[in-house]
């Protein structure tokens, strides 16, 4: 549904995007992850037809972004980094205007506005001026305008930026509720966003593609190990040594009152670990997964420059 091949964008001598390729399948939510100034916004602007690319190819909803720009624009909902709102308009008149310019027929306009208001949870502020509503509501209006023409593809640039934690959770739930027929690409520099909302991720840094794939695939290819962290009443080196004796366990490192235990992917040593802890009377308090998580992965990729 979104296919990008060797995309390049140069501003004079500066290259913002240096040959990025990735593919997002229909009905999936993918995250475009990278530190600030990685080229996320530029990539999204190219996909939505706001900026032309210097080189490369991009296909959105089956249409070439450069050849069939109008078709792409009809099929795509876009929330830019700066939410494009007219402060002097009311929420519903703004959504009505967006419906008009996005090509919603006048017969369906009212229904489309109603649906977008509902999706964004905006019924209570529909008659208020946009300049008078809170930041969280503004962001929701931004998402509602992206949805107004019922697009197949949604491109959301940092949808949760600047919101408070409760609002972030709300927006994430909203985005998750849109999963289904729609293909969604959202950009973020917050890792938790990807693990909590996305099916897959494209990691870029300084305009270059660092990795892309579903979360499981990426964890597998970069980690290669599974593990757990156990919190013990009697932790320390002695406990770690006991765990190292278990079959399958590769490493067991004490970290304060906890022990980090890793084993090869494909097995599961947790039963043995729990049994041992109880038998030896180590005082098992807590046991949690220490899989190679997206945060380790992200830091590893961005700092180490491991290219797939």
């Amino acid at each position: 549904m979104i296919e990008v091949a060797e995309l390049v964008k140069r501003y004079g001598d500066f290259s913002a995007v240096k040959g990025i390729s990735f593919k997002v399948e229909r009905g999936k939510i993918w995250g475009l992850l990278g530190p600030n100034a990685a080229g996320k916004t530029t990539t999204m602007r190219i996909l939505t037809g706001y900026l032309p690319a210097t080189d490369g190819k991009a296909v959105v909803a089956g249409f070439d972004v450069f050849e069939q720009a109008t078709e792409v624009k009809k099929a795509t909902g876009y929330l830019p980094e700066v939410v494009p709102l007219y402060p002097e308009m009311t929420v519903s008149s703004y959504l009505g205007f967006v419906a008009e310019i996005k090509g919603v027929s006048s017969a369906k306009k009212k229904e489309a506005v109603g649906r977008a208001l509902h999706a964004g949870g905006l019924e209570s502020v529909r008659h208020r001026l946009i300049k008078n509503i809170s930041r969280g509501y503004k962001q929701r209006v931004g998402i509602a305008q992206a949805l107004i023409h019922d697009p197949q593809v949604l491109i959301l640039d940092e949808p949760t930026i600047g919101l408070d934690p409760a609002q972030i959770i709300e927006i994430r739930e909203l985005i998750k509720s849109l999963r289904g027929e729609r293909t969604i690409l959202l950009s973020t520099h917050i890792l938790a966003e990807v693990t909590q909302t996305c099916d897959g991720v494209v990691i870029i840094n300084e305009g270059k593609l660092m990795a892309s794939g579903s979360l499981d695939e990426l964890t597998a290819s970069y980690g290669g190990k599974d593990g757990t962290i156990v919190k013990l009443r009697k932790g320390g080196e002695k406990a770690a040594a006991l765990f190292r004796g278990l079959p399958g366990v590769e490493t067991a490192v004490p970290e304060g009152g906890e022990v980090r235990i890793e084993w090869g992917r494909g097995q599961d040593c947790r039963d043995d670990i729990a049994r041992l802890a109880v038998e030896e009377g180590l005082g098992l308090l807590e046991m949690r997964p220490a899989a190679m998580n997206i945060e380790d992965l992200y830091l590893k990729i961005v700092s180490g420059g491991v290219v797939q």
Partner: protein
Amino acid sequence: MKNIWFIAKKELQAYFSSPIAYVVIAVFLLLVGFFFYSLIMWFNSQAMQLAQNPAYYQQININQMVFSPLLHNMSIILLLMLPLLTMRLFAEEKKIGTEELLFTSPVSINQIILGKYLASLIVLAVMLLLTGLLMIFTFAYGNPELAPLLDGYLGLFLMGAAFLAIGIFYSSLTENQIVAAILTFGTLLLFWVLNWAGSAAAGIWKDALNYVSFFQHFDDMTRGILDTSDLVYYLSFSFFGLFLTHSVIQSRRWR
């Protein structure tokens, strides 16, 4: 066509939901009303004096003595006020980031420009129509000729349309509304001054400067002369302004 109207409707809403349109229209009417009053009073005193002498009395002409100078005054007021109508059209979209919405919608650049231009033309038309109320009095109490007056109004509208096109062009260049207004104002003033330079110059320069100046063409129209070359001048000026706007927007996106 529909898209042009959608954009124009939104711009009209913006004009009339903020004080801008009301202030511009009100101040315009106030000034026009003042000039109208002074000219009518002057006309009255002239008519009184000349009425003594039947030979001069024949020459009293309200079209020439009131309407023509009034239309000239109105053109200068428009020069001062129309930049305020166009300054926000693109500059504001850029500043608050809404141009990203416009340019990622299935609406062409031409439709966006024409929609905004149409909205400003409608405000201009409202301004001119409201001054028509003053003219009704002259028809009620005197017997002016209608055709030259309509010709003058047509000239005023076309000249205003050219002013607006230039204003839109400058608005597309910057995200600062004040800068857009000052550049527009300066350009219009320059074209006004070219008229004076024209009267001082000689030969081909005189013709060239007179042709380029807004007001030479307008002068004919206030006297009831409808020349296609004047129409062509104003229309091509407007077209040129809009064309430049299109080039600016297009090139900025490709840079």
